[in-house]
């Protein structure tokens, strides 16, 4: 800016000039202009700064509420994407004691909507005027919420919260577990979701953006197993039942059912002792199915061959008691026949040949003595004998004196049948492109093949205990087990756990099925017996007949050709995403 010429009025000789006069107030005007400009630019700058700041939302949520947050959980879906558990919005009713006008009116009117309302409790809570937040009832359906709203009571208000919904009802209830009132996982897969996958703390009913947790379960298989088990419980008047379908190579659990069932939406149900999970949460002496382990040991250790003959005619003395066969054949049996006739004496003889030390090591190798864990939680630890003497060796050889959870046993049996490599159970679906786990051999491929032959023979042989499990179209192999249940002062007469361990297709096992019936009665359907051959074996056959087509395992046996029914690897039409 050029410096303005200062007029010098005092000079007489200076000609009168218009311009200097006009500029008489020049400096002042310039100053004013500059101030105005500066102000304007400051205003612009201030606006720019204000706009550049992260926009503050107009809605400010009140954080003074004295309530803990609610948790948003990811969905749980089955291996095909079908929904097993999901969050839905629900209304929760609370009262602000300070705004309540008439306590008695509120209590009486609320009782008309909730007949089971704890009147004195609510009255007491509302009596304390300092309490601004009292839960009345949580997780209301929109209809009930509307009913309460229609009462028009001051001091009551709703909060929108997330509630866990299990659309399948009791389906896979034991596996899923349950959540508490704040939507946090307490047991089962729900607990795993909290601990490993993560949940989001939310103030209102905001659903999570997390990807669903994909389980290895197959909803169709799970249902087929559950409905057949329920049916078997009815036909054989059993007190309980349990079933398991396991991928014999990857350890993925496709179905795990236990009866009496639990409803994940009713957590108190899961606390009843009778409803405990029989697959992973309890241990049992499994009886003759354990002979698969004994036979595998005998074959693996070279203590016998399939055609080795054992004289099983005489009962075997084992310490204070005697080992007998339930249905003695009355002649010496080969090792194969010991298996298919399920001879206790034969199994005890084989175990004695190997000796306590070898049996213990073998049981240890198969992972039947270590504590195991799945995503569902820890598996009930095995109950081991305090000492492994000759007597224990004999009883363990046919499945008594050592209690293990059915899941842990099925996992060990998978290793015996799948070619001899170790399997780790999981409830999560393996990614299709995941690299196959490194194979850890537990038994030789030859022993595994012999075991498959024995299992198959037990179903195809007319004398086999598993012949009632045969289903046309499937090559099934299996072993029965009828274990007496220990009670006070010895084993209980005719109170048994009958079980059937099956694998199919047996020449190259893909799936392992383990079915247990607890205290079945000698009903007409079981020809008046409580033997596994008459109840658990046919139940397993029915289960395989139903799940086989779902799993794409059926083959046209009429011509002996194995045409696959359909490609089970294609995504099903009903898939959610």
């Amino acid at each position, binding site marked *: 800016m050029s410096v303005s010429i200062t007029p010098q009025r005092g000079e007489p000789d200076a000609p009168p000039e218009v311009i200097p006069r006009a500029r008489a107030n020049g400096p002042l005007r310039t100053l004013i202009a500059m101030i105005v*400009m500066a102000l*304007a630019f400051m205003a612009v700058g201030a606006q720019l700064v204000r706009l550049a700041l992260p*926009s503050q939302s107009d809605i400010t949520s009140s954080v003074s509420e004295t309530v803990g947050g609610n948790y948003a959980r990811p969905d749980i879906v089955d291996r095909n994407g079908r929904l*097993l558990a999901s969050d839905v919005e629900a209304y929760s009713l609370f009262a602000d004691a300070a705004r309540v006008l008439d306590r008695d009116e509120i209590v009486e009117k609320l009782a008309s909507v909730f007949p089971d309302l704890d009147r004195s409790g609510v009255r007491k809570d509302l009596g304390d005027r300092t309490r601004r937040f009292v839960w009345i009832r949580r997780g209301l359906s929109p209809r009930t919420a509307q009913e309460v709203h229609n009462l028009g009571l001051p001091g009551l208000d709703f909060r929108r919260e997330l509630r866990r919904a299990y659309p399948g*009802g009791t389906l896979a209830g034991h596996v899923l577990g349950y959540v508490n009132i704040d939507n946090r996982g307490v047991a089962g897969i729900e607990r795993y979701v909290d601990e490993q996958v993560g949940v989001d703390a939310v103030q209102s*009913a905001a659903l999570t953006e997390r990807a669903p947790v994909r389980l290895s379960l197959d909803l169709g298989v799970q249902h087929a197993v559950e*409905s057949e088990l329920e049916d078997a419980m009815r036909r054989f008047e059993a007190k309980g039942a349990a079933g398991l379908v396991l991928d014999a190579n990857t350890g993925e659990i496709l179905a795990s059912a236990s009866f009496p069932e639990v409803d994940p939406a009713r957590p108190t149900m899961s606390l009843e002792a009778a409803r405990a999970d029989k697959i992973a949460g309890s241990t049992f002496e499994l009886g003759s199915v354990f002979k698969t382990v004994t036979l595998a040991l005998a074959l693996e250790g070279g203590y016998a061959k399939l055609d080795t003959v054992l004289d099983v005619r005489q009962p075997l003395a084992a310490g204070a008691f005697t080992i007998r066969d339930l249905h003695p054949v009355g002649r010496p049996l080969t090792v194969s026949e010991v298996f298919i006739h399920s001879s206790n004496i034969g199994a005890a003889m084989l175990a004695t040949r190997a000796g306590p030390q070898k049996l213990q090591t073998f049981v240890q190798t198969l992972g039947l003595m270590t504590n195991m864990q799945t995503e569902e939680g820890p598996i009930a630890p095995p109950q081991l004998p305090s000492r492994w003497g000759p007597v224990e060796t004999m009883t363990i050889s046919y499945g008594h004196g050592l209690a293990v959870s059915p899941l842990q046993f099925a996992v060990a049996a998978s290793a015996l049948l799948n070619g001899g490599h170790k399997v780790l159970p999981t409830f999560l679906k393996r990614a299709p492109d995941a690299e196959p786990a490194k194979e850890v051999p537990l038994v030789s491929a030859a022993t595994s093949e012999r075991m498959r032959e024995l299992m198959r023979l037990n179903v195809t042989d007319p004398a086999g205990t598993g012949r009632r499990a045969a289903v046309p179209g499937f090559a099934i192999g299996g072993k029965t087990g009828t274990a007496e249940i220990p009670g006070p002062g010895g084993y209980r007469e005719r109170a048994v756990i009958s079980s059937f361990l099956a694998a199919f297709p047996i020449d190259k096992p893909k799936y392992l099925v383990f079915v247990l019936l607890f205290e079945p009665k000698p009903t007409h359907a079981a020809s008046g017996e409580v033997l596994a051959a008459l109840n658990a074996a046919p139940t397993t056959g029915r289960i395989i007949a139903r799940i086989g087509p779902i799993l794409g395992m059926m083959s046209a046996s009429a011509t002996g050709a194995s045409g696959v029914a359909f490609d089970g690897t294609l995504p099903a039409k009903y898939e959610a995403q």
Partner: protein
Amino acid sequence: MRIVNLAAFALALASAFLLYGINYDTRLLETRVQGEERAIDEARSDIAVLKAERAHLGRPERIEPLARAQGLRPASEQQLAASPEEAMTRALAQAGAARSPAAKAN
């Protein structure tokens, strides 16, 4: 000089107005975005409820009796054949077997 000042002044004024306008528009947009977000939340919540409802209605426990009432049942190996020829032979045999008792009855 004056022109420059006046121009700057006018520019400042204009930009102030412009900014004010933008600010106003932004607020309007923000309200709209919030509205949309609320709508999205509501839609997501509705989807969650509908998904749960669909899964509930499609639960196997409910579908099975309905399917059985329609005369459906699990697939059996009878429905499989290794080749089309075999399927045809079997179908003919079945048709023949179905006819022969009828013929006897007649």
